[in-house]
Every structure is written in C-alpha cells, then in structure tokens.
C-alpha cells in the first residue's frame, strides 16, 4: 500500500491516539514540574474597643490574580518528585541516619505515602497472579471434559466475574462480606467471634482485596487456557495413552509444556492489569488501609476545592515508569514474533 493511501486510512485513528493518549502523557509530565501557587498572606490590623492586633490572613484578591496569571502554578522543576508524598528523599535520608535497625528503617519507609502505595500495588499484583494462573488452568481443564451441551452455559457462568466492571464486582462481594451480610455472618459463625469483621484490620482487608482480585481475574486466564487447550495436538496424547501414561502424566508432560507460552502471556497481562488497581479499593471502601498508586492519583484529582495537578502528574509519571518496567518483556516478545512473521 502506498504511503499516501496508508496515511489517509490511518490518519483519523492515529490522530485520536496522538491527541488523547500521547499528549496527555506529555501534559502530565509538564504539570508535574509545576506546583500550586502559594496563597498570598497579608497582615491586617484589626481594631476593636479592646485594642488593636495584627492578623495574618489570605489575600484572596491577590491569590486569585496570581492563579489567573499562572493557572498551572509556579515552576518547581523536579521538586514534586522528591517531596514527602512521592519519593521522599529527605525523609529516607533522615530515617537512614536516625534509625537504629533495619526493621525500624523499613517501618518508617513503608509509612511514607508513596512507598506504602507501591507496597500495596506490588503485593496485590504478585499475590493475585499466581493463583489466577493455577485456578484458570484447573477450571479450563475441568470445563474441557464436561458434556458438550453443558459447555456453553457453564462458560457463561464462569466468565461473569470478568464481564462486570471492577467497581460493581467489588461492591457485590463487599455487600456479602459486610459483617451484616451473608458471608460476613458465616465467617463470624465459623470462627465463633461475633465481632470479627474483614474491615477491622488492615491484613484482613488486604486479603479480602486479593481474594476479590483472584475472583475477578481467573475468568480471563480460564478463557485463554480453554482456547489453547483446543489446540493441543492429539497424536502425542494417544501415543502416551498407548505407552501407558496416566492422566496426570499426560497433563504434566504434554499439555502443560504446550501451554507455557500462553501462561507467560496471561501472567504479563495480569501483572499489568493489576498494577492499575483502583476500583476495588473504592468498592471495598478500603482507602484507609490500602492505597495503590492509581488511588493516589485519583485522590489528588478528587479533592473538592483544590486539585493537586502537580502531585497527580508526578505520581502518574512514576506509575508509567512502573508500567514500562512490567511491559518490557511483552515488547520483547512482540518484537520476536513480528520478526519471525516476516
């Protein structure tokens, strides 16, 4: 196809992506270099019958004027990246010199907002992915063996948790897990503790979120594994049966090796998807104990009176770096595939 024709065919789609995905990333970076203008303070002398005193208060007029002149705020360079809410260099240095043991240092480090969020995000990613792959594989094997007429409805049932948006999915589970809901009461009954609530401690909330993550992500792994199972060659399996291999041995030595590439694909996608975890935290009302990187950005942009564009921009940039690290293996894989295709 000539370049000219290609250009006109691709132009609308490319323009949309450039304007609304490419530019925002640059705009985010630009915002992260700025910081909200300080409020201009003025001293006012206030006199009443008991005497005069000076008060400092915000000069609203001057502040609004400054905001109009510099809507993005003043230039701050990379300052926002190093402040307490992001990489917190000063705090880390201080903690390093002052803390007596490694444990104390880690404790201080993980109480800084950014590192706390990073810890949760990574824990969530790496706790959810392995069970998702294993469960997805088992369910796929299992569905593959049932009668053909039952397959359709079964698959529909199994993929439901994936179809609903994470916010709705987490709400549905949250209402059941609530201390007054059916699962919550059941757990209280099980442990014989009428005050037990999954919301009561941070560990329990984290576990709940991770269980939700597994529930939501397993269908995706299932679908991909199930499709891959249809492509497993039958000849080696029959040969193995004739040689007297048990069912377990056949799965272990023929099916699983065949599915390795698919499994890596699922793992990478799962890690990438879960790295942006946000909605479950809102759905489970877990903001207090579990914050993710995405939630930090959401929170900066949510604040009613003043949106912290600078802070949100800086966290966005750091998140993108995280995504880039996770994405590298996928890119290398695509590159190889594309080269062999040619």
């Amino acid at each position, binding site marked *: *196809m000539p370049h000219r*024709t290609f250009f006109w065919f*691709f132009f*609308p*789609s*490319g323009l*949309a*992506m450039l304007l*609304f*995905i490419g530019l*925002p*990333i640059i*705009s*985010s970076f630009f*915002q992260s270099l700025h910081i909200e203008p300080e409020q201009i303070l003025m001293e006012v002398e206030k006199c009443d019958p008991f005497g005069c005193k000076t008060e400092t208060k915000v000069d609203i007029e001057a502040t609004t004027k400054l905001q109009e002149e510099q809507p993005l705020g003043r230039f701050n360079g990379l300052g926002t990246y190093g402040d307490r809410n992001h990489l917190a260099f000063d705090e880390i240095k201080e903690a390093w010199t002052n803390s007596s043991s490694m444990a104390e240092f880690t404790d201080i480090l993980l109480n800084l907002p950014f590192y706390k969020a990073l810890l949760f995000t990574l824990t969530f990613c790496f706790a959810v992915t392995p069970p998702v792959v294993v469960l997805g594989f088992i*369910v796929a094997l299992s569905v593959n*063996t049932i009668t053909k007429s039952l397959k359709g409805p079964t698959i529909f049932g*199994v*993929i439901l948790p994936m179809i*609903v*948006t994470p*916010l*709705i999915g987490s*709400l*549905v*589970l949250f209402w059941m897990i609530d201390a*007054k*809901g*059916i699962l919550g*009461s059941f757990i209280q009954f099980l442990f014989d503790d009428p005050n037990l609530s999954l919301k009561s401690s941070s560990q329990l909330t984290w576990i709940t979120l991770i269980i939700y993550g597994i529930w939501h992500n397993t*269908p*995706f792994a299932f679908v*991909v594994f199930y*499709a891959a199972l249809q492509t497993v060659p039958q000849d080696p399996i*029959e040969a193995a*049966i004739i040689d007297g291999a048990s069912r377990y041995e056949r799965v272990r030595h023929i099916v699983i090796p065949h599915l390795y590439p698919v499994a890596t*694909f699922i793992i990478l*996608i799962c890690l990438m*998807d879960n790295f942006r975890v*946000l*909605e479950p935290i*809102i759905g489970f*009302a877990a903001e207090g104990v579990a914050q993710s990187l*995405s939630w930090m*950005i*959401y929170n*900066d*942009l949510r604040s009613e009176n003043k949106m912290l*564009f600078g802070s949100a*921009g800086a966290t966005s*940039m750091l*998140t*993108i770096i995280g*995504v880039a690290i996770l*994405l590298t293996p*996928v*890119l290398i894989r*695509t*590159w190889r595939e*594309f080269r062999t295709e040619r």
Partner: protein
Amino acid sequence: MESKINRYSKQLILINSFFILAWLIVSVFPFIWTFWGSFKVKADFFSRADWMFAVTGVNTLIETGDTSTVKAYVESWTEGEFWKATMNTIIITVSVVTISLFLGTLGAYALSRSTYKYTFWILIAALIFRAMPHITLVSGYLFPFFQLNVWGILPTTIIVLVAINQPFTLWLLYSFFKTVPKELDESALIDGCSYFQAFRFVIMPVMWPGVVTAGLFSMMLAYNDFTVTSLLLNQQNYTMVPKINAYLGTIEHSGNYMWAVSSVVSATAPLFMIIMFFQRQLISGLTAGAVKG
C-alpha cells in the same frame, strides 16, 4: 474429538462435576444474591440479627407489607435520576462503539495491508498506549480541559473513550484482517478499484465477524468505565457506574444504600443479556487478538 481410549473414569467425572459446580457457585452466586437482595429493604439485606432475613424478607414484610418490594428500583430511577444516568450511558456507549469501529476498521485495514516497517512501530506504540493506566491519562486531561472549558460534557468523554479504546480495537482488527486473504482485495485493485473502493466493496462485506467482536469490546469498555467518566463528567452528566458510586457517598441515608444495590442490578442485567448472545465473539476476541493488556 474424544478417542475411545481416552475415556474418563467414573471417579474423575464425579470429582470434576463437584469442582465445576463449586466454581460456578463462587462466580455466579454473588450476582444471584444481589439480585434477590435488591427486592428487600436495607434491614434485611444487611441484617444484623440473622442473614436468613435477606431470604425471607421479614423486615421487608413489616416495612412494606409484602416480602419483596420494588421500592428501591422505583426511587432510584425517579428520585435518584438513574434514568438520566442510563440515557447518558446509552449515548456514550453507542457513540463510542460507532466512532471507534469506524476509525478502527480503516486504520487496522491499512496496517494489515501495508508492508512497510513503520506499521510495526505503530503497532508497538499502540501496545504501549494500551498499557497506560487510564488514571494517568485522566490526570493529563483535566487541566487542559478546564482551560478549554470542555470539562464535564458528554462529547469530550466520548472522544476520550474512543481514543483510549483505539489501541485495542486496532490490534484486534489488525489480527482479524490478517486472516482475510490478501488476494481478495488485490484482485479488486487489479480490476481498477482504488484502495478505498476495494475496502468498501470487497472487504466490508466480509469483515462483520471481526467487527462484531471489536464492537463488543468497545461496548464493554464504554459501558463499564469508571475512571474516565467519574473524573471527566460533572454530576449531572454521570453515567451509570459513577452514579452508583455517588449513591454510596451518602451512607447515612439508609434508603440510598438500597438505591445502589438496585442500580447495580439495573446496570448489570443488560450487560449479561448482551454477553449471553455474543459469548462466542467475546471468547474469540480474547484469544485471537491475544492482546488484552
């Protein structure tokens, strides 16, 4: 194609059936429970005394005179203005699906037929764009949108969702067009068609299976979106998902909490119906494209 020697033992079938049944309960029961509970009052759905109240509806009987009630539905749709959120969702979903399919088919067709190296870099760029967390993009939108005074309205959100959706649509349709034999449109070109005519008269009639799959995914993205719609729309223009979240903001009001429960059912039911019809396309899309991330 099960060979006769690969028969399953009775024992295995039994264990397998149990496992599948258990897994089905895990994935389906929460939705059935929520559906059932949405016809009860809050004192039953979140029952302090006995969880069985949610099944029998004891308090619902006391409060409304019947064991089940549609009060939460009626109130959320009228007083809670859920009808408006539904309208907005329909407008956004239909527009996003139409526009992104239009742009996507043209772009993906060009990508699949061009033999130059830049197509690879475009596809890689699309893959990177696809991996960007939506919230980081939103943080880049807000400030310019405020300055341009286009924040809060539906068209802005539609364009943003179309753009966010493009990378996946492109990849999906690209791999679909790769399976359409090149000879088909090449013969049309030899017969004197322009590229556009070849696309219009030769490719368009055979591209519908791929388009339906891509459309299904665009629909799910637009319908399910929370990050973009909750931050880029003002309260009056909220779609269903941010609206449900807004109901939850007022927990003190016990009536509102059931609004959220009933709205979850109202929002999920149509989606499930659509998926029931298009399940095959959904699964083929997830596997064929192999680029969900």
